[in-house]
């Protein structure tokens, strides 16, 4: 798990703090930085800043569908309106919902069903972010 370059930052949009903590631990093992957005509103705020160049641009958005304020779909649709964000930042849908896969497919996005293994998570991140992120040895 050694890396020479910064593999980038991942925006995790999820309100489950336990999960986000665990995800952050895993991603940190891969030297990824994590920005948290515990609500849809927070996520759109953060991405709004990215759009105007006030914040770092994430290499991936991990988007949960069930958020405390607005639905994941709405977050996705709204971020598509943002310049330099819409269509420019890859999004992967996470969900523990029964119909998660269907909803992800209807958005045309890749799906990471919850619960997921470390490898599943790392594989997804690896596919979208820079750097030679290596899965931890098992």
């Amino acid at each position, binding site marked *: 798990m050694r890396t020479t370059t910064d593999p980038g930052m991942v925006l995790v949009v999820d309100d489950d703090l336990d999960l986000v903590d*665990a995800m952050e631990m895993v991603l940190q093992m891969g030297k990824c930085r994590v920005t948290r957005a515990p609500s849809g509103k927070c996520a759109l705020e953060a991405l709004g800043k990215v759009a105007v160049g006030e914040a770092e641009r994430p290499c991936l958005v991990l988007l949960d569908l069930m958020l405390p304020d607005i639905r994941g779909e709405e977050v996705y649709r709204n971020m598509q309106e943002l310049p330099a964000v819409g269509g420019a930042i890859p999004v992967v849908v996470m969900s523990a*919902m*029964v119909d998660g*896969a*269907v909803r992800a497919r209807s958005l045309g996005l890749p799906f990471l069903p919850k*619960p*997921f293994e470390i490898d599943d998570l790392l594989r997804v991140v690896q596919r979208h972010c820079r750097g030679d992120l290596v899965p931890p040895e*098992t």
Partner: protein
Amino acid sequence: MAHPVDQSSGEGAPPPESADRAAGDPFAPLSDRFMRAICDHVAHPIFVKDREYRFVFVNRALCEMVGHSAEDLIGRTDYDFFPREQADFFREKDRQMFESGVPVVIDEEPITDASGRRHVLATTKVPLRDETGRATHLVGIIHDISDLKRAEEEQRKANLELADALERLRQRNASLHQLDQLKTEFLANISHEFRTPLTLSLAPLEEMLEEPRSASDHQRMQLVHKNSMRLLNLVNNLLDFARIESGHLEPTFVPVPISDLTRQLSASFELALSKKGIRYEFRDELAPGTVAYVDPEVWQKIIFNLLGNALKYTQHGRVGVRVRRAPGDAEAIAVSIEDTGIGMPEAELSRVFDRFHRVKEGRSYTYEGMGIGLSLVAEGVRLHGGTVHVKSELGAGSVFTVTIPLGSAHLPQGRIRTHQLEGLWRDGPRKGDILVPSPYPAQEAVGADATPAATRQPLLLVVDDNQDMRDYLQQILKSEAQVLTARDGLEGLEQARRLLPDLVISDVMMPNLDGFELCQRLKAEESTAHVPVLLITARADLPERVRGLQSGADDYILKPFNPAELQARVRLQLRLHAARQQLRDHAAVLERTLDEKSRALRHSHEELSTILAHLAEGVLVVSPKGELTLVNHAAIALTGISTGTIDEWAAQVELSTEEGERLEGDSLPMRRALAGETLLGVEMRLVNASTRQPAWVLLSAVPLKGERAQGAVCTLHDISRLKESERLKDEFLSVASHELRTPLGSLQLLSGVVRSHLADTALAPTVLPLVERQQRLIQRLNRLINDILDVSRLKLGKLSINPRSVELGAIVREAVERARGTIGIRHELVVSMGAEMMVHADPDRVDQILGNLLANACKYSPAGTVVEVATRGHDGMAHITVRDSGPGIPVELHERIFERFYQVEASMGRAFGGLGLGLYISRELATAQGGQIWVESVPEHGSTFHFTLPLSNG
């Protein structure tokens, strides 16, 4: 002029045509001679004239006709032989023929021949032409039609005479017929006129005879009575005679025990005979129960007349009646009436049955007759197809023997009734039918037969225009009932309406309204229709009786009547009336019962309404016109609408299908039901018109079938709550899955983190296996949650399967790859892929099936063994197998393992975990995608799970 006309004689003969022909004709001389010979032998006169109208040829017949020889005739014209006028006529006709050149036919020409005889001729005049076609001669052929004309004339005269004679005959016939009718009517009227006063005098007389009187009075009265009866007898005979004459005697033959009938009829004379000191004998020599077809009335006439004669002409000794098989004819019966009376001379015997014949030689003419009695007997017997004979010896007695055939084949079929009408022949003799010197013998019997009428005094209405008759009727009937009277039909009708009597006794012939009309009017009115009517008629002929019955009369009695008979009939009618009344009462009771039943029905209808009202199900009844005719409480509560048309209803409740399609017009379920369709339990959505609350209903619409179109009934089963609970369950499932999975996800990740942190530490050898075990348990928990969710969704039919065309290999490889890192970590997973195949399937679901099969394979086979996954295409299906080296599954369980919650072995299950849902879900998923799943296994030799998926067409 007896010789043939010589061909050479006279100028101009033979005719030019023959001469011309002769030149080239080898038979010319011969044919000329021939022709002449033929002409001379023809009976028709023939002549030939030239253009100057001179005879150039005549045959013998012509010569004979005109009376001149050929020599005289040839070269002459008609003017030389016929009167000028006639000659002018012939010349005109000849000229016509020459001018027109066509044959002329004279139909009829009268001529006078040489001898002055007149003939009628029909002549045909034909032209003879030369080679230029010009008519040079005229041939005349004459038919003498004098004889024919004469014959015609005679025929015509004969026909005229015949027609004349026929006309005269017809007229005579008609007047005879008229006379006959007049006579019959006259007789009938006489009978009427005679019988009424006779009845009026006889009846009180009979009553007087009953009362104690001095012997001389009694004797005188008996004399009056006897002579009255004699008069009555004459009238009756006249009447019968009139009936036969007018052809109104139409017999009706019924099968009767002939001995019994004859015995009863004869018995009527027993009393009269014994009073005269004559011994009466009845001998029945027939087999018991022998049945013969007779008209009882006619038969009575026969027996009464014969016995009446016997009584009349016998002063002492015996009168016997003998019934037996006819001697010499087994198919006939013979009834003999034998007396030891005065007898008849031999010479009279052949004429006794003639009408109006009376035996001249007789010592006693005490009882005169009119001489029609025996002719009536003969006529009556003839009606029965039988014969009557008499043997007699003057001074020794007579034997009359009536023979009639048995059976009914000899009788007119239309006049046979097979059922004996009860009572038809039991009434005994009619008053005056016979001469009986004592009061009517059957009186007691009839009286005894009668039973007292109802305890309530019945009410009788007597309608008669004759004051005497009214009084008399009132007097004889007052013992039977309370009697009221009316003076004519109109008064009778009025009183009957007002009093509703138990019986109306009415005369037929009355002013204003006659008995028939009164009867008809009474029967036509509802209030009086049940009142029985007894008609008294003097007109004894049959058509009148039929009219009496057609008018609805319940009974009729002939004038003159015996008071006892009238009393009996009145009693009978009163009894019948009482019985009918009882029936009516009974009917009323029935009606009341019916009323109660219909009340019960109404009650049950009310019950039904109550049920409807309290039914949780909404019920709407729709008329054929589409109007709501019944809306129960539940329906109103559900829809907020209680009346209107179904269109209005549907518009207000915004009825729509599950898919959200608004329904209106012909697509409305009620309209479809009205059109005969039946919809059952269709899920629909509606909005309560008053509360605007949406509701889900299961809607059924059924046509109401009946004798006529009765509309439709529509039921609404509110499933809103069900839908709500379904939605809640769905939501619960989502939440549950989410809520369970979310911490599990964290746990899983954290456990991974712990594991990776441990990897390089000293604790690794001891702690790492525990962490790994923890991870496996988390996975198991995860699978369990997934399985439970899937089963729930399967049960709800909510498991979404989205098949599309996908490449099978990629799915298999991915599934196996994932298994390698997790469940199959201790096994060798081998993939043996066939050719690349596109299947029509949901990749997620295929992955799920494979995951389950791989998990099972790994779970049940020892660590380190091979689990092989193979694919191949076969018969339009992709065929996937997962083979393990486990303990195998006994064949009897091959199906059961696919059942829900079944586990191969409980102990095994506990060891390896799982609720046995995997195979159940796999089968459901495979089937839902058009595939199949099954297992092949031999214990100790591992198991192979197969599943198929349809290959994609594209």
